[in-house]
C-alpha cells in the first residue's frame, strides 16, 4: 500500500498538471476548431519566462509566475485568438501547417534566446509536508493538486452550465448564428484562448521544477495532455480530467512493471503512455465520436494556378539542367550538402504528394526516412538476417538495398494510415505526431534501428566501411560495398549524380501518379471522400495506398540522405529527430503546392541556404526555425489577410502568372478539376476574399450539374 502511495501521490499531482494542460487544449479546440500543436510550446515558453524572472532576475516567485502568466497566458492567448480567427475558414491542413509552424517558431526562439542546455527553475513551492507512512506529501504537491482539481471543476461548471460557456461550443457550430443570438463570437473566442493559454502556461511553470526548463522535455510532457484529451475524445472535459489523472498515475507507477527487462522497447513504454493511450483511442473508438470541429465553415483550398504546358515543361527542364550543373559550379566541399538536399527533396516530394494531393497529413515523415536510412545502411553493411533462407548473410547492392529500404517502410505507412482510414484529417495529424514521437522514443535506439550508438553506417557504392563496436557487436567489422554496374560512387560528385538519378526517378513517379487515374481519384478524395464513395471507389484502399507510397518514397529519401553523409544519426536533435518532421511540414507549407517545384524549393530552403551568406551566420542558423515557423504561419493565414484586395483598392495590382488556356489540357497535372471550379463558383475561394462576418458566399449557380472530379475519375475521362 505504501509503495502504491509512493507512486500514486506524485501521479495525482502530475495528473492535475496534465489536466490543466489538457483542459486548455480541449477548450481551445472546442471553441475554435483549431487544434493547437503549439500548446506544449506555449507551456515551455511560460516556463522559460518564469525562469527568467525567478532565477535570473531574483523576483519573488508569485511575481515571476504572474509576469509569465500575463505575457504568455493573456497576451499569448490574445495572439492565438487572432491567429485562430484568421484560420477559421482555412482547411484543416493549413491549420496544421500554421500551428506546427508556431511550435517550430516558439521552440527555435526559446532555444536561440535561452540556449539549448536545460535550466533549473528550482522548487518554488514548499517541499516539506506531513508523512503518511513512508510517504511525504509536500504542501507544494497538495497545492498543485488542489489548484488543478478546483480549477478543472470550476471550468467544467462554467462551460457546462452558463450561457457564455455554452457559447464556446456554439461558436464553432455557427459563429454567425451565435452573433444573431446577441453574443459576440470574437469575445467568446478570445476568452477561450486566454483561458487555454493560461492553463498551458500554468502547467509549464508547475512542471518546470521537476523536469527542468527545457523546450524538448516540456513540449513532450505537455503532450501527455494529448492522451488525456483523447480520453475525453477532444470534447468532454470530465473524461479529459479523469484521463489526465489516470495517465499521471500510470506514468509514475508503470516503470516498476518493466524493472526486470532488458528490452529497450519495454523500458520506453512508461514515458510513451500518453501516445499509446492516444493511438488506442484512435484505433478503437467509433469514428462517429471523433468528428472534426468547425469543418462546416471551411473553404476549399485553392488549387495552384494552372500554368501553360510549355511553361511547365520548360520549368522542369531548367530545374534538371540546374541540378546537373550544380557539381560543376559549387565548391567541392559543398557538394555533399547538395547531395543530401536531393535526399530531402525526395522526402518533400513524398510529403507533398500526401498532403497536397490527397489532403492527408503526416507529422512523422522523418520516422519513415529514419527507417529507410537504417535499413539501407544495415543491408549494405551487415546484410540480410542470417536466418533468412537463400539470402541470409548476403549483402545486396546499393540500388537494391535502397529499394528494399523503401519497401520495408511500406507496412509502417500502412499502419499509420489506419487512423487515416477511420478518422477526419486533424486526428490523422495528431496520430502521426504521436506515432513519430513513439517511434523515436521506443525504436530509434533499439538494435533494429540506430542501436545504442545512435549511428548507422551508410557506405556509398564502391567504398570501404568500418562498423564500430556496439552493445551487440563487440569487435569492429571492415568491409567493402560493391559499385553499381562496377562504377564506384565514392567521390562526392559521383554520389551527387547517383542521388540525382534517384530523385528524378521519384519525381517521375509523382508526376505519373498525378497524371494517372489515381491522381484524379486522390484529388477527388481531398475534395469529398463521401462523394467518392458514392461513386463506388474504395477510399480505404486509396488512403492506405497513398500513405504506403509516400512512406516508400520517404524511406528511399532517408537512404539517399544517409548516403550523402555516409552515416545516419538517430540522436535526439539529429537529422531524423521527430521535430524535423514538424519543420518539414512548416517548410513545405510556405514553399507552395506545386508537385515538383515546391519540394525542390523546400529542400533548398532547409538544407542549402544555410551554407551561404548571410544564412550561414550564427544568428541566422539559430533563428532559422523562427523564420520557417513565421513563414508557414504567414502562408496559412495569407488568404484571410486580404492583402491583395487592399492593394487592389489602392490601385496596385499584383503581377500574376499566365493561366493555361483551352479545354484540351493534360489529364491530371495542375488542372483545376471541374468540381473545384463548380465549388469555387459556389463558394468564392479567392485567397483575398475573407470576411469574418461572412459565410462562404454563394453566387450564381453554375450552369448545369457539374461533373465532379470523382465522376471524371470514374467515367474514365482522365484515365
Amino acid at each position, binding site marked *: 500500500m505504501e509503495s502504491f502511495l509512493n507512486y500514486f501521490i506524485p501521479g495525482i499531482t502530475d495528473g492535475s498538471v496534465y489536466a490543466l494542460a489538457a483542459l486548455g487544449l480541449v477548450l481551445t479546440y472546442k471553441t475554435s476548431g483549431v487544434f493547437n500543436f503549439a500548446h506544449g510550446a506555449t507551456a515551455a515558453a511560460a516556463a522559460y519566462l518564469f525562469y527568467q524572472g525567478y532565477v535570473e532576475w531574483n523576483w519573488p516567485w508569485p511575481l515571476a509566475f504572474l509576469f509569465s502568466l500575463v505575457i504568455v497566458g493573456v497576451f499569448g492567448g490574445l495572439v492565438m485568438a487572432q491567429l485562430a480567427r484568421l484560420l477559421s475558414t482555412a482547411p484543416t491542413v493549413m491549420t496544421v501547417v500554421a500551428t506546427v509552424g508556431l511550435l517550430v517558431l516558439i521552440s527555435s526562439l526559446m532555444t536561440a534566446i535561452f540556449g539549448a542546455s536545460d535550466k533549473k527553475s528550482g522548487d518554488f513551492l514548499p517541499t516539506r509536508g506531513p508523512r503518511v507512512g513512508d510517504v511525504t506529501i509536500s504542501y507544494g504537491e497538495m497545492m498543485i493538486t488542489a489548484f488543478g482539481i478546483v480549477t478543472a471543476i470550476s471550468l467544467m461548471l462554467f462551460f457546462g452550465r452558463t*450561457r457564455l460557456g*455554452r*457559447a464556446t*461550443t*456554439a461558436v*464553432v*457550430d*455557427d459563429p*454567425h*448564428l*451565435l*452573433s*444573431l*443570438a*446577441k*453574443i*459576440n*463570437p470574437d469575445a467568446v473566442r478570445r476568452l477561450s484562448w486566454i483561458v487555454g493559454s493560461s492553463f498551458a502556461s500554468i502547467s509549464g511553470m508547475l512542471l518546470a521544477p521537476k523536469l527542468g526548463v527545457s523546450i524538448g522535455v516540456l513540449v513532450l510532457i505537455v503532450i501527455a495532455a494529448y492522451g488525456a484529451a483523447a480520453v475525453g475524445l477532444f470534447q468532454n472535459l470530465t473524461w479529459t480530467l479523469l484521463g489526465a489523472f489516470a495517465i499521471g498515475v500510470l506514468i509514475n507507477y508503470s516503470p516498476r512493471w518493466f524493472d526486470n527487462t532488458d528490452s529497450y522497447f519495454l523500458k520506453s513504454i512508461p514515458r510513451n503512455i500518453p501516445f499509446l493511450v492516444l493511438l488506442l483511442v484512435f484505433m478503437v473508438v467509433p469514428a462517429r465520436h471523433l468528428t472534426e470541429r468547425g469543418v462546416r465553415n471551411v473553404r476549399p483550398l485553392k488549387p495552384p494556378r494552372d500554368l501553360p504546358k510549355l511553361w511547365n515543361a520548360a520549368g522542369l527542364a531548367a530545374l534538371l539542367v540546374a541540378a546537373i550543373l550544380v557539381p560543376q559550379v559549387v565548391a567541392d566541399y559543398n557538394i555533399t550538402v547538395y547531395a543530401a538536399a536531393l535526399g530531402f527533396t525526395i522526402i518533400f516530394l513524398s510529403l507533398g504528394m500526401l498532403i497536397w494531393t490527397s489532403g492527408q497529413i503526416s507529422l512523422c515523415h522523418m520516422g519513415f526516412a529514419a527507417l529507410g536510412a537504417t535499413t539501407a545502411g544495415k543491408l549494405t553493411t551487415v546484410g540480410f538476417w542470417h536466418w533468412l533462407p537463400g539470402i541470409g548473410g548476403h549483402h545486396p547492392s546499393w540500388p537494391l538495398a535502397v529499394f528494399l529500404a523503401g519497401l520495408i517502410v511500406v507496412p509502417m505507412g500502412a499502419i499509420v494510415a489506419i487512423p487515416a482510414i477511420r478518422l477526419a484529417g486533424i486526428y490523422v495529424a495528431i496520430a502521426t505526431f504521436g506515432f513519430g514521437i513513439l517511434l523515436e522514443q521506443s525504436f530509434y535506439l533499439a538494435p533494429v534501428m540506430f542501436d545504442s550508438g545512435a549511428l548507422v553506417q551508410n557506405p556509398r557504392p564502391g567504398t570501404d566501411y568500418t562498423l564500430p563496436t556496439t552493445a551487440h557487436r563487440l569487435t569492429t567489422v571492415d568491409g567493402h560495398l560493391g559499385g553499381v554496374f562496377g562504377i564506384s560512387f565514392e567521390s562526392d560528385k559521383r554520389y551527387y549524380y547517383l542521388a540525382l538519378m534517384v530523385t528524378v526517378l521519384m519525381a517521375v513517379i509523382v508526376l505519373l501518379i498525378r497524371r494517372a487515374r489515381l491522381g484524379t481519384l486522390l484529388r477527388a478524395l481531398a475534395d469529398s471522400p463521401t462523394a467518392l464513395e458514392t461513386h463506388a471507389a474504395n477510399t480505404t484502399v486509396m488512403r492506405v495506398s497513398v500513405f504506403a507510397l509516400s512512406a516508400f518514397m520517404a524511406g528511399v529519401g532517408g537512404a539517399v540522405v544517409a548516403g550523402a553523409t555516409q552515416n545516419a544519426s538517430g540522436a535526439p536533435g539529429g537529422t531524423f529527430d521527430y521535430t524535423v518532421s514538424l519543420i518539414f511540414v512548416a517548410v513545405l507549407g510556405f514553399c507552395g503546392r506545386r508537385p515538383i517545384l515546391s519540394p525542390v524549393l523546400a529542400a533548398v530552403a532547409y538544407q542549402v541556404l544555410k551554407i551561404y551568406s548571410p544564412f550561414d551566420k550564427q544568428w541566422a542558423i539559430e533563428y532559422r526555425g523562427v523564420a520557417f515557423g513565421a513563414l508557414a504561419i504567414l502562408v496559412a493565414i495569407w488568404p484571410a489577410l486580404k492583402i491583395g*484586395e487592399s492593394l487592389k483598392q489602392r490601385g496596385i495590382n499584383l503581377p500574376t502568372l499566365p493561366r493555361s488556356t483551352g479545354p484540351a489540357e493534360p489529364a491530371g497535372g495542375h488542372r483545376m478539376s471541374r468540381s473545384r471550379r463548380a465549388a469555387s463558383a459556389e463558394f*468564392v475561394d*479567392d485567397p*483575398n*476574399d475573407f470576411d469574418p*462576418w*461572412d*459565410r462562404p*458566399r454563394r*453566387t*450564381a*449557380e453554375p450552369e448545369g450539374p457539374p461533373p465532379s472530379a470523382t465522376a471524371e475519375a470514374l467515367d474514365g475521362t482522365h484515365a
Partner: protein
Amino acid sequence: MLELKNITAGYDTGRVLSDVSITVPDNATVALLGPNGAGKTTLLRVASGLLKPYSGEVLVDGADMTGKPPYKMSRAGVIHVPEGRGVFPSLTVSENILLQAAAGEFKAAFKTATKTFPVLGKRSNQIAKTLSGGEQQMLALNHAYVGEPTVVLLDEVSMGLAPKIVAEIFSYLSDLKSKGVAQLLVEQYVGQALKMADYVYVLNRGRITFEGVPEDVSEETIMTSYLGSLAQ
C-alpha cells in the same frame, strides 16, 4: 421600426442589391417576394448586420445601425432566423434555448419555448442535429419567441418541410403577428405569405419592382417577377 434606405450591397463577385429601400413598421408583417437570385437573402443579411452594405443606411427605431455587427443588431431587437436550420447542431435543445434567450432569462425562455412548442420540451436534452427538420425549424423559430424582438427577419423558414409542418409553421407566424412582433417575411409559399402580409415588396435582380398592399399584387406581377426571364 426597421428601415433600409437606398441599400446597395453585394459580394466580391459582384453587386447583388441596387438602391433598395424597404420599411418594416412596428407590428406589421411585410412580405419580401422574388425569384431565386433576386437578392432577398442578401437584403436580410444586410438588415441583420451579417453583411455590410456598400452604401445606404440601416435604421432601427430611427437609430443608425449601418455596419454594426449582428450581435449589436440582435441586442437592438432585430432577430434573424436564417435560411436553412438556424440551430447549433452540437448543442442540446435546452442549450440552444439558453443561447436564444437574453442573459439570465433562461428559465422564463424555456417555459415560453415548451409552452409554444411542446415538442421542444419533450426533446430538451436531445442534440439538435438529431431532431427532425420540422423540429429543428421550430427550435430556430423559437428564437423569435424568446429573443425579445421588435422585428423578426424570417428567411424561407418553410423550406424543405412537409406541407403539414409548413401549415404548422405558418400558424406560429400568425401567432407571432398577433403578439405584435413585426416581421419581414421571405417565403416561397407566395399565397400564404400574401395572406399574412400587410405590405408587400417584390424584388427582382436586386431592385424593387413592386411595392404595395397584398390586394394590389396581381398574378401578373408575380408571374412577371418569377418567370420574367422566361417570358422574355
